[in-house]
């Protein structure tokens, strides 16, 4: 909402500074977002007086003017306007001035005569449509004074962000009420007297029929006849311009002016184009079409509310009038509508048609039904004055649902306890009165009746807010609360804490956290072969690359990879903790959210400097991270087995823990990686943190006495075929049931060049809990193990 300061002063005598006003409005909840100087672009122009006009020696249609601009010497200005004459006060653009349209004025030769500037038309100054001649200023401004001052143009306009609960502040008068309440100033309603033409009787000529009382609780209209369509007076046009409204003509401008002044949207029909003697308010026929003022044909549905004459719809109620009854230069009789429409209905229509107007904006938030007759009369009076026209006697109206005022009980003690204040009853009474409420009652209890322009005041707590707002929330006391806890702690949510510990773990291992969007493009999922089943589509995405939620974390983190490769960062060790989304009818919302950990390694294993070797990361770097994760959070080693036909990983290894599938790790298929600009191997893992958290939360360390007896270590060299997986050897050893075997580790693998086999060196650690082991016992166990291995597996020993 744009508020002109001089317009405000029509209703309340605020004499303070614009900055202080902006601050105080902001502090009562009317945030001033900006102080606009709407005519700043005219600040270089000056008022001048034409001292003499002569014909241009070289051109019939040009005049040569001598213009006084208050300097020691008059200027010579060539002017092409037919209406220029000596004695006129005019708008002068001097050498170097930029006009609103961007044209820079300079001293130029025009047909052999030097012109020291330009005398401007209204259109050139964007102050009106008239380009037929120069603009002649009224009054006698001092030559050389600033044009904007000479015209009385508004210097300060406040751009106020009005919250949706305050439709009353979408008008100058409504804001004046707030200003009066804040500064304790009087509030003066517009004063006017409306002369009616008794020769015509509006209600006798016109009947109002409302088919849908919920959609239209009040419809009223006045008839103004004999108008001449022309520009509205300067002051009205300048005020409209100052709040960003383009002046059109005296009738349309008046409806806009009153809407800004009092907050009530009005509409003017060309009465001669309305057929019959009835105005009807009724829903649209589904599928019908209607052409609005902007000459767009709109397709309607049964929810749209229309204004009809006897034959046809003539306006899309509260949103926009129809082209078929628009005020034109030929109009003389005007039917002026001032109605109340249901906010929900207007909102639905405006949204569906993408047709948001100043009018629909106000109806959506709620207009002042009790104030509607005043707004209608105000506009009728302005039309009678500036139409100029005759206002027919009476108002044609129907009000199937009159406004019912809401009375609210207000307990001062409760207000004080909620706001931590100690205000007395008189103070409360004064605030409510100044805001337009009727107040009754005494002691602790007031009965407050909210005015019809404050639909937001329906409950006691709404009144508490008014007290806090006007008193100043910023002035209320402050202290830290005593946060009470239930003795019996209810269910504890450990999810956040667990995710945090995962992040700390990853950071400690030198991984860097990234955060990617939860959405990606269908084409990304397709590219990665991710199944179509289970995808969660965004119904109204911003763009195609954000039209589906991540079923796997990979698209986002590959995007990060691409960004970084583009930035020249090729050594990446990344992690992300985020949710995957999958359709699941069993979930509360129909979408299963699963918190997962993504790991991505790309480029050299180590920092690129001595004494590190230059090697690229490989599978075992990735697996090591996964193993470390399980060791840290699960205390159990995971199982890692080959997995075929994974959509985007090859090779792909499935990681499971106990009986739970945790996820996959492997290399992103090279052709897919290349789509993200990666030429080197991209190692990626995606693991289920919800599952890991479940396992983790069951683990409680149980103390075991420290061993008293020493260990004995023995190495064993095993020769195995290349394809024999290490896990099989471990399985045989682990299942041998050797009680003194404390640990087995693989210390070396050797691949002889000349044979298709591998040589593994296993290191066995033995310990007895109750005594020192003898060499020969250990030798025997080693021997048995070797025999077991040869029985079960195709292995041999050197």
């Amino acid at each position: 909402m744009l508020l002109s300061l001089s317009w405000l002063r029509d209703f309340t005598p605020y004499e303070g500074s614009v900055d202080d006003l902006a601050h105080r409005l902001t502090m009562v909840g009317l945030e001033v977002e900006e102080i606009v100087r709407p005519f700043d672009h005219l600040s270089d122009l000056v008022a001048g007086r034409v001292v003499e006009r002569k014909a241009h020696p070289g051109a019939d249609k040009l005049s040569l003017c001598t213009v006084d601009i208050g300097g020691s010497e008059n200027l010579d200005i060539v002017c092409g306007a037919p209406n220029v004459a000596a004695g006129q006060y005019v708008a002068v653009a001097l050498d170097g001035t930029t006009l609103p349209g961007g044209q820079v004025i300079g001293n130029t030769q025009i047909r052999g005569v030097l012109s020291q500037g330009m005398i401007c038309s209204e259109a050139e100054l964007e102050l009106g449509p008239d380009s037929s001649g120069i603009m002649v200023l009224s009054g006698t401004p001092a030559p050389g004074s600033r044009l904007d001052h000479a015209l009385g143009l508004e210097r300060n306009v406040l751009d106020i962000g009005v919250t949706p609960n305050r439709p009353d502040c979408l008008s100058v008068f409504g804001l004046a009420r707030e200003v009066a309440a804040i500064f304790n100033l009087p509030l003066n309603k517009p004063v006017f007297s409306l002369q009616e033409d008794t020769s015509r009787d509006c209600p006798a000529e016109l009947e109002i029929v409302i088919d849908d009382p919920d959609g239209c609780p009040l419809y009223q209209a006045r008839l103004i006849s004999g108008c001449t369509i022309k520009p509205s007076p300067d002051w009205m046009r300048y005020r409209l311009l100052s709040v960003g409204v383009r002046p059109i003509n005296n009738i349309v401008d008046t409806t806009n002016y009153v809407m800004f002044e009092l907050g009530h949207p009005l509409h003017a029909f060309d009465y001669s184009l309305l057929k019959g003697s009835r105005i009807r308010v009724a829903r649209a026929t589904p599928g019908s079409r209607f052409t609005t003022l902007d000459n767009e044909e709109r397709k309607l549905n049964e929810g749209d509310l229309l204004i009809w004459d006897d034959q046809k719809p003539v306006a899309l109620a509260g949103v926009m009038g129809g082209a078929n009854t628009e005020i034109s230069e030929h109009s003389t009789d005007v039917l002026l509508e001032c109605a109340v429409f249901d906010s929900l209905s207007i909102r639905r229509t405006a949204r569906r048609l993408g047709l948001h107007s100043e009018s629909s904006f106000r109806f959506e938030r709620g207009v002042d039904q009790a104030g509607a007759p005043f707004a209608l009369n105000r506009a009728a009076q302005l039309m009678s004055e500036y139409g100029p026209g005759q206002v027919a006697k009476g108002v044609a109206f129907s009000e199937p649902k009159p406004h019912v005022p809401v009375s609210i009980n207000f307990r001062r003690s409760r207000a004080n306890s909620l706001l931590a204040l100690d205000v007395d009853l008189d103070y409360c009474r004064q605030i409510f009165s100044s805001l337009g409420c009727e107040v009754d009652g005494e002691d602790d209890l007031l009965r407050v009746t909210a005015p019809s322009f404050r639909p937001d005041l329906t409950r006691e707590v709404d009144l508490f807010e008014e007290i806090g707002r006007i008193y100043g929330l910023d002035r209320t006391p402050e202290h830290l609360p005593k946060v009470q806890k239930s003795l019996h702690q209810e269910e504890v949510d450990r999810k956040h804490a667990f995710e945090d510990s995962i992040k700390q773990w990853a950071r400690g291992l030198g991984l860097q956290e990234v955060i990617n969007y939860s959405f990606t493009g269908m084409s990304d999922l397709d590219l990665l072969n991710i199944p179509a089943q289970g995808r969660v589509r965004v119904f109204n995405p911003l763009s195609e690359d954000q039209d589906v939620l991540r079923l796997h974390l990979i698209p986002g983190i590959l995007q990060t990879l691409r960004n970084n490769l583009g930035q020249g960062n090729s050594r990446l060790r990344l992690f992300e903790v985020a949710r995957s989304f999958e359709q699941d009818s069993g979930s509360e919302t129909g979408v299963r959210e699963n918190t997962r950990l993504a790991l991505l390694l790309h480029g050299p294993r180590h920092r690129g400097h001595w004494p590190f070797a230059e090697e690229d990361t490989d599978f075992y770097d990735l697996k090591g991270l996964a193993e470390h994760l399980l060791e840290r959070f699960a205390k159990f080693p995971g199982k890692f087995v080959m997995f075929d036909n994974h959509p985007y990983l090859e090779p792909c290894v499935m990681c499971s823990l106990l009986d739970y599938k945790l996820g996959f790790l492997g290399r992103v298929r090279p052709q897919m990686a290349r789509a993200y600009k990666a030429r080197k191997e991209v190692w990626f893992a995606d693991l289920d943190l919800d599952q890991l958290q479940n396992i983790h939360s069951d683990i409680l360390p149980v103390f075991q006495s420290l061993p008293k007896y020493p260990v004995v270590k023995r190495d064993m060299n095993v020769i195995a075929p290349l394809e024999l997986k290490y896990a099989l050897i471990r399985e045989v050893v682990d299942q041998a049931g050797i009680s003194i075997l404390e640990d087995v580790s693989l210390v070396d693998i050797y691949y002889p060049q000349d044979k298709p086999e591998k040589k593994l060196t296993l290191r066995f650690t033995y310990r007895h809990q109750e005594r020192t082991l003898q060499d020969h016992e250990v030798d025997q166990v080693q021997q048995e193990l070797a025999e077991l291995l040869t029985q079960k597996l195709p292995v041999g020993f050197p």
Partner: protein
Amino acid sequence: MNSVLEINSSLKSLVHEFETRMDQASSLRDLEEARVAFLGRKGKLAKIMSAIPGLDSSERPLAGKTANQVKTELTRLLEDKKNELERLAAFRLDPRFDPSLPGRIPDMGSIHPVTRVIQDICSIFTGLGFDIVTGPEVETDFYNFEALNLPPGHPARDMQDTLYITESLVLRTHTSPMQIRTMEKRTPPVAAIAPGKVYRRDSDLTHTPMFHQIEGFLVDEQVSMADLRGTLTAFAQRIFDPGVKVRFRPSFFPFTEPSAEVDISCVMCEGRGRHRDDISCRVCKETGWVEVLGCGMIDPEVFLQVGYDPEKYTGFAFGLGVERVAMLKYGINDLRMFFENDLKFLNQFA
């Protein structure tokens, strides 16, 4: 000195004396002198041993054995010290040894600045007694809007452009649904914060379609505006600076009444609107204030949704944008950087 006891005692003190000598030795020459003095033909050990033949024959083997053990011990101490000195010499003398060469530095991990700020904020509020709660990012219209006093068609729904999954399912536009979800499960007193991702259909220089919020709320008997103001002032001063000024401006949210927006004095220009060099401050647009969060006293309608008695209980709630706080705290000037994850950006938060 003729008894075996005397000899044993001399041998023992000889070991101590040698150990002291070794500790003091700082060169191979010191060692050679010590060797001659203790282990040489005319050294201290030889002198003690020369008394052994004079002992009774029954005592001689024991004394001899002890003397040999002492000799072995002294030799070992001497060798150890010699090794130590040689290793030291090797570092000093080897021209290749260069302590200015880089070491094997383990990789520097990093936490995303958004996570960092969430951690900071969570620790402030857990310190004040708030629990951390989590909930779904795909949310029902009921939890995201209706239960928060935002019925269908409410103009305040326009305050947030929503990304829909279906007609009744949205990507949550704020973390406020966690108020409802938590209150449904618990009975007052309840004090919790809910950090997480939120989504809006908005993308430009100052908006990303996904960002992070932290919701906080406290419900109990007798909770007042003063509790809210105190909590948020304490928060702002702890997360930014103890000197930061906090301003409460009335505003409107359907789920709080009264509602307020909280501004802090601009951390870039220290609330002056202009920098020291008189350049106008772009962060606060010369106002000296920047908005950091929205808050208010929980609306009675919300309590009715979860079955709390609004006559008995009052409470406050607030919601703050994490990226906004991170930008102010770290001086980040481009919102989009958060989700581009450029290493040169991430490395700054290691």
